């Protein structure tokens, strides 16, 4: 009886990856950016991140009636990503409501992890942007104070480089690359985000097509239509890549496995679409920054993209021969 053939239905080959291992890798990848945020914006940035992560985990545990706070780690990732796209020192209640909205409206109402249509962290951000616009846009951004952990960063505030031209010209491309400019607490340092992105790519969690398409489109648009105000067309293209949320959006938000296309071509289309909408909003829209809504809009059309980019099946028989 030992040689009995066991028949089971697919899947037959399972990956050793689990939700928990992927989420742990994302948390590791976010570490450089989080560290950079604390170095640049001090204890208030750390506080914002802690409040957001704890709220997200607590709301998820309450919703699912689970004792295990960390669980599969996805709530912690959502909470940390949400904090990354907030101003460095928002009021605590804004962080709490936003993180709770991320989990509830962004994820759980759709049926929990794997079923959400929109990126949860960005849903949270959209909720707070729409609700407290005056705290999320305009000249509210603290000047970074490197290595001053206890500094009161909200004493001096200004607009982001994207909002006003003089602001833009006072930051060199190098300082923008390192992250010494006003902005959301996790989005300023391209260097730290690239480090995290490299880790995710090495572990095979992200596909180059989405960030490549996204960043490439932003660069080309900035080069062609940016008005060359930042030194020259080439520099203006780079400026648009480094300023604002393009890097964090391209590397961490637009690569979310659940809310983006599964096909290779679909991912390229998705990335290009994100870049296109971002630049349309930046150059011709009424807001200085458009990454959030670009990704959310592309999340919405993801099923259509998937539908049109299904790879051709080989070995089939022609239907009407």
């Amino acid at each position, binding site marked *: 009886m030992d040689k009995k053939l066991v028949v089971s239905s697919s899947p037959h080959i399972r990956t050793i990856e689990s939700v928990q291992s992927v989420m742990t890798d994302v948390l590791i990848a976010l570490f450089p950016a989080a560290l950079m945020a604390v170095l640049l914006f001090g204890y208030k940035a750390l506080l914002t991140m802690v409040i957001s992560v704890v709220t997200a985990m607590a709301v998820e545990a309450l919703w699912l009636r689970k004792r295990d706070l960390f669980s599969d780690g996805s709530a912690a990732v959502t909470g940390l990503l949400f904090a990354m796209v907030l101003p460095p020192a928002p009021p605590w209640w804004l962080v709490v*409501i936003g993180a709770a909205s991320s989990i509830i*409206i962004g994820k759980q*109402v759709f049926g929990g992890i794997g079923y959400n249509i929109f990126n949860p962290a960005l849903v949270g951000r959209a909720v707070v942007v*729409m*609700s*407290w616009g005056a705290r999320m846009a305009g000249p509210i951004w603290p000047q970074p104070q490197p290595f001053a952990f206890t500094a009161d960063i909200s004493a001096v505030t200004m607009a982001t480089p994207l909002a006003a031209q003089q602001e833009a010209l006072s930051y060199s491309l190098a300082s923008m690359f390192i992250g010494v400019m006003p902005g959301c607490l996790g989005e300023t340092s391209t260097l730290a985000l690239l480090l995290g992105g490299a880790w995710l790519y090495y572990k095979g969690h992200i596909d180059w097509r989405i960030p490549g398409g996204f960043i490439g489109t932003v660069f080309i648009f900035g080069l062609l239509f940016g008005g060359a105000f930042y030194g020259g067309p080439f520099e203006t293209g780079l400026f648009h890549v480094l300023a604002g949320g393009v890097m964090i959006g391209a590397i961490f938000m637009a690569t979310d496995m659940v809310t983006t296309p599964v096909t290779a071509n679909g991912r390229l289309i998705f990335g290009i679409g994100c870049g296109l909408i971002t630049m349309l909003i930046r150059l011709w829209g009424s807001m200085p920054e458009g990454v959030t809504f670009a990704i959310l809009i592309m999340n919405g059309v993801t099923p259509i993209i998937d539908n049109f980019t299904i790879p051709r099946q080989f070995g089939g028989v022609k239907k009407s021969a």
Partner: protein
Amino acid sequence: MKHKPSYWQEFTKGILKENPVLVALLGMCPVLGVTAFVVNGVGMGLAAAAVLIASNLVVSLLRNLIPPQVRIPCFIVVIATFVTIIEMVLEAFLPVLYEALGVFVPLIVVNCVILGRAEAFASKNKPLRAVLDGVGSGIGFTLALLLLSLVREIIGQGTILGPDPETVIHLFGADFEPMILFAQPAGAFIALGLLLAVVNSVYKRFNIK
């Protein structure tokens, strides 16, 4: 012959079991459009209820006189007449409400709750039943608007009985920063979705079907 429901059932079905907004999801345009303030939401609900009751009565009375081929145009004319009367009366006597409701008053004409009740119920039933159905559905519609506008005004504005400065009550003091999302059209969809989720779970618990 099927057993006829009692008058009491005709009256209550529109409030809970067949609530036009919370169960049938009809007439969404005013539901989402005017519920930023309780006063406007209830005003819209009552205006639509008045049209609904009146049109149900008239349609039921005329049900044997109107040839079936032209019944829909006749219903629309009846409804449009009552809507225009309501509009003129509002503008004359309740100008504040009239301005707040704006284009949504004339749009009651195409509110599918009203045409739906006229076509599906009033045109097949006797006047008393039709009126009871209209009153029930009208109350159900108004209740749903009241619920939604309560949620939206309290969260989205931090007030109640606004926006008239003479009656408005600021619930959370002057420093409160309301969640403006809920005062905006996008927030209306989110609030409605959350409200429907709560209503569905309540219905499930009390086994209302």
